[in-house]
């Protein structure tokens, strides 16, 4: 009875706030279907680690040391993501990769913004929220030793699930109706199996030579894609896409919650990080759209690009591509730009990983 009394007295208002935050994350995951695979474990974990004298801290610390401190979980997850990615639309029109690059502008802009408030390693870790890619955010924040991993992850996954809400107003603000109605006939160009197989290998080699710090991320992503495209490892490809990705995701969310203990999470810095994350997503979207508009200045009529596809370069695969496609259909129900948008979206996946590697190259001592 005395123990129960002591535990009850151990409850602080900060813990109660964290339970509420955990509850909100669980609600958003279940009721609003917002990234449920991550937000639900993170939400439950937030409650779990904020109980008085929580006995879950030790096993979670063990999981953290085993899977996140050494970046193992995000890298394994990347094998699954690579196996899910179909680069065919991108390979049939490689120019689309430029939009993936342009839409990483938010990362570097946010780096400058965050550096006004945080030291440079924390600023870089916060900026990578703009990669719209959870595993990249974890690897960069962990390698740079950021103490804000919990807040960064919550911001990254929340905004990824909010892409359908964040992107459309930014796109509409930067484009005219006429631009949003630009048609881009999709010329189907068959990509050979050899190209599909060589692509992940070549990308890994290029990334390794030019941005060595990105090679772990790129390499694991491309390994997953090679398993998918080789044509002889169907069973492994299915396992990577489903069982492996699910298993790692299961542990990833709840383990990240270890960094959501009230003392380190309930600070003004967390609010600032969440605000900066939003800026990163908005500027990423704007970067892609504006780049497309600039390209249109040099293109002949009939060859112009629907600037909305630039926004899909944000990564957040495949949600962003679908958002852009739906927007185009809303403007003109007979305008199908899904393949182009998905191609740009896939290039954003590659570009965000390379951006993460460049950030590590700049700041990893």
């Amino acid at each position, binding site marked *: 009875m005395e123990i129960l009394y002591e535990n009850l007295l151990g409850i602080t208002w900060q813990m109660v706030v964290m339970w509420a935050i955990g509850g909100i994350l669980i609600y958003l995951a279940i009721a609003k279907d917002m990234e449920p695979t991550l937000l639900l474990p993170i939400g439950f974990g937030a409650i779990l680690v904020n109980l008085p004298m929580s006995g879950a801290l030790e096993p979670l610390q063990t999981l953290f040391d085993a899977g996140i401190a050494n970046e193992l979980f995000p890298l394994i997850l990347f094998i699954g993501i690579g196996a899910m990615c179909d680069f065919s639309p991108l390979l049939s029109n*490689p120019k689309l990769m430029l939009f993936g690059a342009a839409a990483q502008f938010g990362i570097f802009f946010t780096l400058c913004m965050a550096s006004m408030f945080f030291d440079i390693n924390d600023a870089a870790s916060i900026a990578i929220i703009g990669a719209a890619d959870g595993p990249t955010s974890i690897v960069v924040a962990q390698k740079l030793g950021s103490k804000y991993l919990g807040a960064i992850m919550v911001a990254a996954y929340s905004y990824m699930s909010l892409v359908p809400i964040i992107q459309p107003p930014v796109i509409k603000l930067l484009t005219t109706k006429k631009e949003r109605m630009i048609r881009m006939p999709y010329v189907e160009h068959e990509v050979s199996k050899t*190209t599909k197989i060589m692509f992940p290998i070549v990308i890994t080699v290029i990334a390794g030579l030019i941005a060595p710090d990105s090679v772990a991320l790129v390499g694991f992503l491309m390994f997953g894609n090679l398993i998918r495209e080789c044509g002889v490892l169907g069973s492994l490809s299915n396992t990577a896409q489903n069982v492996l990705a699910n298993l790692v995701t299961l542990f990833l969310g709840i383990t990240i919650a270890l960094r959501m203990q009230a003392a380190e999470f309930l600070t003004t*810095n967390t609010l600032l990080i969440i605000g900066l994350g939003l800026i990163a997503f908005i500027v990423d979207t704007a970067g892609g759209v504006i780049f497309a508009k600039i390209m249109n200045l040099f293109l002949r009529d009939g060859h112009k690009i629907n600037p909305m596809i630039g926004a899909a370069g944000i990564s957040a695969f495949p949600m962003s591509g679908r958002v852009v496609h739906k927007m185009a259909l809303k403007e003109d129900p007979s305008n199908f730009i899904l393949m182009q948008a998905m191609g740009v979206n896939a290039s954003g996946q590659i570009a965000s990983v390379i951006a993460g590697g*460049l950030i590590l190259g700049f700041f990893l001592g």
Partner: protein
Amino acid sequence: MEFNPMNFVDNLRYMGLGMLGIFAVMAVIIIVTVILDRLTSGRRGSRTDTDDE
């Protein structure tokens, strides 16, 4: 936490270097992909010819 607005200006070089770097890497990837596609398309064509025979 301190507020240092000058850090924004000081770190603009990382913005420039970062965007330059990412465009450079993507440009190399585009060039290699195009070359790869041309080479393998050629092979695909010759294989079809052989099949026709």
